[in-house]
């Protein structure tokens, strides 16, 4: 820090809004970041992923979870790089398979909080099968799906959530495929908690993630984001800041949405933010554990009766 510049301007460090030297250590939530990993992240500057990562670590922090008790499992893509920066048990797997790896891990360690972090292509194209089956089982995993409607890491190909008519490098004349409504899909498949927010609504996201992680069953949080580098450029949607503003202007809270007339709801094209679904259902590992308890008990009796104990 060039102290003499501050002096020339007659500014204190505080007035110049220069962070304290121990800013990193002073922040409790930042303690969840891996200090031995070289930052910056691989994400483009202006990307919504940093905000979403912030929401995730605040959610974990609010719940007061021990870092050892949390596992982050990711597939492949920009979003899937999130775990490497965070000081938890982190498993960076193959494309589309985060939920399948997470299923094995959750069954092995039902006491751990397992969070699967995926992009839209990762979760719904190559990983679509695992997504619906994890939801069907209602296994206690939180799926965080960051939906930017594009394959960012590979350079801007259309994804299963790219809106009809929008352009991508592999849809140069406009996308002809209808998109998946991620939340509806999860609800239909059996998820017990489903919520949606955006990278603009960071605190809302943090609240939904807390609820999702606390939910005893399969939870989905769809975090709508943007990719200004590929999708934004190809579709002339402006800078990262403009796209971020777009999330604010083109979304509506569920509370406000519910107050609309049926005709207005029908005509709505905005992203509906809120808790879209909550239903108490038996959680997979808990149900399976009943079988294990019953069978281990009967086995003990059998061994005792045959004199092998």
């Amino acid at each position, binding site marked *: 820090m060039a102290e003499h510049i501050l002096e020339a301007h007659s500014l204190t460090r505080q007035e110049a809004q220069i962070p304290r030297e121990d800013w990193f250590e002073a922040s409790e939530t930042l303690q969840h970041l891996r200090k031995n990993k070289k930052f910056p992240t691989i994400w483009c500057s202006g990307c919504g992923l940093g905000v979403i990562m912030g929401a995730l670590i605040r959610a974990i922090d609010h719940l007061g979870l021990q870092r050892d008790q949390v*596992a982050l499992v990711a597939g492949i893509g920009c979003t899937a790089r999130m775990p490497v920066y965070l000081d938890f048990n982190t498993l960076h797997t193959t494309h589309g398979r985060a939920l399948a790896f997470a299923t094995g891990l959750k069954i092995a360690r039902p006491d751990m909080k397992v969070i699967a972090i995926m992009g839209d292509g990762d979760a719904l194209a190559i990983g679509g099968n695992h997504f619906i089956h994890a939801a069907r089982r209602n296994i206690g995993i939180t799926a965080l799906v960051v939906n930017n409607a594009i394959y960012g890491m590979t350079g801007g190909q259309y994804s299963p959530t790219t809106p009809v008519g929008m352009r991508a490098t592999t849809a140069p004349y406009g996308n002809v495929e209808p998109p998946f409504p991620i939340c509806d899909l999860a609800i239909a498949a059996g998820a017990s908690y489903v919520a949606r927010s955006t990278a603009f609504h960071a605190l809302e996201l943090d609240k939904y993630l807390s609820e999702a992680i606390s939910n005893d069953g399969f939870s989905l949080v769809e975090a709508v984001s943007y990719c200004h580098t590929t999708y934004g450029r190809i579709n002339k949607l402006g800078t990262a800041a403009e796209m971020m503003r777009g999330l604010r202007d083109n979304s509506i809270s569920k509370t406000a949405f519910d107050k609309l007339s049926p005709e207005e709801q029908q005509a709505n094209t905005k992203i509906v933010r809120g808790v879209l679904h909550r239903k108490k259902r038996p959680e997979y590992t808990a149900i399976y554990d009943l079988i294990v308890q019953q069978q281990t008990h009967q086995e003990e009796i059998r061994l005792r009766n045959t004199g092998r104990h």
Partner: protein
Amino acid sequence: MSVKLMQGNEAIALGAIAAGCRFYAGYPITPSSEVAEVMARELPKVGGKFIQMEDEIASMAAIIGARVGGLKSMTATSGPGFSLMQENLGYAVMAEIPCVVVNVQRLGPSTGQPTAASQGDVMQARWGTHGDHPIIALSPISVSQAFDLTVKAFNLSEKYRTPVILLTDEIIGHMREPIELPDFTTVEKYEHVVTEPPETYKPYSNRTDVPPMAAFGRGYRYHITGLFHDEVGFPTQRLDEVEPWLERVNSKLERNPDDILLYQADYQPGARVAILSYGATARTARHAVKQMRARGEKVNLFTAYTLWPFPEKAVEALADSVERIIVPEMNLGQLALEVERVAGRRKVTRVNRANGEMVTPDMILAAMER
């Protein structure tokens, strides 16, 4: 100790439980489904967990996830499912996650003949996943050995932090034989012990052939990835970090041949011909050798139980002992390629059958005349 009559597939399941397997994920496929059925029935009795996944890709992923969580794990499949497992099999190699994959081979390619036997996946077991990589594949010749080699598969998998393929076939899988089951508590099991404290623990240390593996959720928070990684598990592209890893992982099996390479070499002084075989075909070979020896003909018999890494030195020695090696296989010549590679100037005669039927002793005897 108790004697039971059972199928090879059942023996594999019980061998897994004896070896400490406590997680199984699989997808139904003929002729391997009995392994899943026995695991579904038996695992809960010992506190283990079974799950039928949505496909073989997910099954392979789930067993890796469960082992990361600390449970020894296995899946079983056949040709088409084995193909689907290849990507995550490579992940297990890269991330050095122990696990056992059973392939009860059936006639392929594609759906082929699901109920017919084959040894057509020998090369897929070696090179099925992308990229250069080490792999272990074991192949039993009887029901009793199916049990023993499953135990061995688990222990090698743990000891060398690598996936191990139990490459069996429909004949061994569905054949019933008496087997002496040991008391499972007496079965030797390899367990990882991490002595390093979390602050200095390096899950991918290159200072030893195989660094011990810490399970998730026990205070060792670290990163596991399919990308090239440094000693603590973080992705890296630096050559000074990647090259020691390549060197260690690609030579960790070669450096321990006595432990990994299992075979039986039955030499007869003065023999000029040898038969080399494995799996169900080894039973045919034994039969042919018995007939020849009964007629007073001298023949050397080599049975490979470890197919990968290929027991080169032992096969070289075999080649040195005779003028000709006969290699019967239920495929169009796969392990024969390896035999030809190491046999030098010795003649290698292939005896192949890839129509779902076993190679017969007569086919081997006829090859002697060729």
